């Protein structure tokens, strides 16, 4: 599975889970939200979002449901499951630990 090159491995999953923790969204809205909240820093190609979503769905972390979208079209909405919430906490904690460590290392170098 090809990953978006400018994203750290595994972070796309974390981002998706975080976004879905706020509210259930469809694929299009997720991609829009990603762009918004990262102020265009994180670029995910439209196509590569979906394999990631499907993977999360098969892991049981998110569930999918067909619903009416805001423009009255049928769309597949993803929402976080109970398992997904746990996973989010775990991954967020991991991320914090990791990023803290990395930025510490980076600052060390500058001294």
């Amino acid at each position, binding site marked *: 599975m090809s990953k978006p090159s400018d994203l750290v491995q595994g972070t796309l999953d974390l981002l998706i889970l975080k976004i879905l923790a706020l509210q259930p969204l469809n694929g299009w809205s997720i991609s829009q939200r990603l762009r918004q909240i990262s102020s265009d820093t994180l670029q995910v190609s*439209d196509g590569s979002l*979906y394999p990631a979503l*499907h993977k999360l769905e098969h*892991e049981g972390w998110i569930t999918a449901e067909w619903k009416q979208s805001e423009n009255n079209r049928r769309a597949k909405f993803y929402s976080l499951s109970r398992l997904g919430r746990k996973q989010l906490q775990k991954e967020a904690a991991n991320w914090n630990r990791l990023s803290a460590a990395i930025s510490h290392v980076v600052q060390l170098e500058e001294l």
Partner: protein
Amino acid sequence: MRPKHWFHTLPLRMRSIFLRRQAERELAEEFEYHLEMRIRECIAGGMTPEEARLVALRAMDGMEQHKEECRDVRGLRWIHEFLQDLRHAFRIWAKSPGFTIVAVLMLALGIGANTAVISVYEALVLRPLPFGQIDRLVEIPPGFNYPNYLDIRADDQVFSDLAVWMVLPLQARGANSKMLSGRAVSSNYFQVVGLPMTLGRGFLTEEEKLSGSRPVAVISNRLWKNGYGSDPLVVGKTLKLNDELLTIVGVAPKELRGDLGLGGVYWDMWVPIPMLPRILHLDREPMWRDAIENRAMGEWLWSFGRLRPGVTLGQARARMAVLFANLQKSYPGSIKDRSKPNLVPVSQARWLQGNSLFSAVILAAATLGILFITCMNIANLLLARGSARQREIATRLALGASRARVVRQLLAEGFALSAVALLLSLAVYSLTLQLMSAFEIPFNFSQINLDLGFDRRALIFAMGIGLLTNVMFGLAPALAATRTGLSGALKDQGFLVIGFRKARCRRLLVVSQMILTVVLLVGAGILGRMVWRFVSADPGFDKNVLIVSSDLPTYGIDKAKQMRFYRQSLERIRRISGVRSAAWGITPPFDQRGYFAENVQPEPAAYGKEDWFSIQSNSVSPGYFQTMRIPILQGRDFDDRDSQNPAGMVIINETMARRFWPGTTPVGKQIRVKKPDPRENRDQGPELCEVIGVVKDVKYETPWEGKIPYIYFPYWHKFFTQMSLHVSVTENPDSMIVPIRKLCESVDSGAVINGGFVISTQLESLFSKERAAACVLGISGLLALILAAIGLYGIISYSVTQRTREFGIRMALGARGGEIVRQVICEGMKMVALGLAIGLSCSAALSRFVASRLHGLSPLDPTTYAAITIFVISIAFLAAFLPARRAAANPMDALRTE
């Protein structure tokens, strides 16, 4: 990728398998929605719809690849592909229904028959013997009389328990004159068997006491079911055996059907040995009264026992040797001197070496052979199809399919075939089982029938075979078909190169089929020829004589009454219309129950006083030789008036005359017949008999026996309660059986009249196994030949098609059609010759194993080998000739096909 939370995602997974189309639709819809939203956004930004669509697609970064990634996430791609392949396979097979049906039927027969054979083998050989803790059980082949047994049992050093049974089966009439068979056993028999009784108990030690013990019996599970309707209160009821009423004390364990030695014999009841004289009415005869207590009674008991814990077989043997020696010392002559007693662990069952194994092996060889040939033929056909589909496969490979993927698809085609065949084979299997269960092997008094069930192991075996065949006939063609280079196969010329390599493989198949065919046919031929030779041979008497057996159990040993019955019935039977003549005899020809022999000495003794000769004998009524059409060479037949004459008389056969009175006439000479007295363990003094006639030699026991001296006594001299009526009839023998039986029963209602068969059928039944084997081998051999012929036809036909252009050019250059046809046939016959040569040598090597069953016929019988060679060659020639004719088609047509 292994899902961690499989339970939560299970519905999702099920959906992607079973609602695949819906999943696909939703996948497409999801991407489409995204695309549309992006397009809208772009249009809103001022692009034209066309531009917008292009930008949106570019942003997708390869939509189809991403869709494929989504499908991969499901992790079930191989299942989809497999199902797809299966669907494809079924479509392909449906396109050539003829081939498919033949292939499936061949496979189903092969798998089904093999599974059935495995079941038979399991029932005969693998099924555990009906004993608890079998590893501690040993048997001691016949070796005891009753008092000796009691002495040995009293020694408790090696055996924790030692039981015996009487070697001869016990036969007695039950209620409604039904014959019941069983065993006379020691009281501890059921303890040694070591399995829980179905109901009640085994025998008690006090029921073994000789006098005054209560008459008791244990009935078999089968008799309990069939005769007592599985009555739970059967214990305490009575069992009638020859006028004696016995109390049923128990129902035997259901696993115990017969003895350990006879896998399929069913007994009806067991009684303690001391019951014997009362049931058989032996107690009225002084000679037998004390037989059970007699140490001179020979060795009539078979024993088996449980070794004490820790005692080895060697220790047991050593101890037995000591005990035997002691007995020998205390009672000389009461036991044979055995320095090495023959103790055999029961688990090494001796019937492994018996006839059942012979049949099972023959059957297995034949069916495995058929299955093998079937697989080879299907492989062959698939190879041929593979080359026909060369271009299709090459195209697939060129379009990017991996070799593994194409092989998988071709394997799926094979799998589809064997899956259908496997289902069908279950039907074949249960049908074969039914046939085999219905087939009862006659065994002396009882019937051996196999307890065959549809068992799980056989089912697993069938599936195993099914998969194996799939690999056998599927894998090789699949690999071969995908091996070729792309360019070669796409271009037409490549065809010839591939064809050549494949043809070698197919030639090998035909040769090996020929070998198998020849081996099977030779086996069938030799056995068949042996059977035919002996069945058609002249045994020296009239084979159309009808035999009816009679049993007079209620008479006990009242000789006068018995003689009256024999005389009266004979007189009346001779008056029935359609009866030419009739006579009594003890042993009918080709009877398998054993023979009487007498110790005799010719007078005047040209030999030492102690030289006794054991000569086979029969007891016959006057008229026997006339009925059997055995010519009297010298002297005369017995006459009823002779019975008043106290002097003994005998008739002897030629061989006996030549052996004891060479060069002189034996009529009028005397012979001495030893009269044993079992009570005293010494002779009463020999009896003198005068030779009154000499008759021609006949074959009595088997049609292959040599010249054996034989003595006939008049039936008033020696007879039994069981005699056989020999009737020479002028009408259809089958229609005479009932009148004869009725007539005997009207003379005395107590007589049990059994059977009724013509001697020739008895003769044929001697060969029932060999005939069955010959049939199985013959049928499978013919099948193999047909299959091999089809294979040969296929090869020649294929090669003719491949070389159409070559033949066309050669004929255009002046070759004659006949020559080309001859050349093509020659190529085919080379394979046949090779197969024949190897097959015949294999047969010659293998036939040693049946040599012991051929009774003098050479296992290298030239007639059989020659006949089979000619037969195989002519069939093969036909198979090669038919397609070869096409080689000589019009050369212009041949060239134009290119």
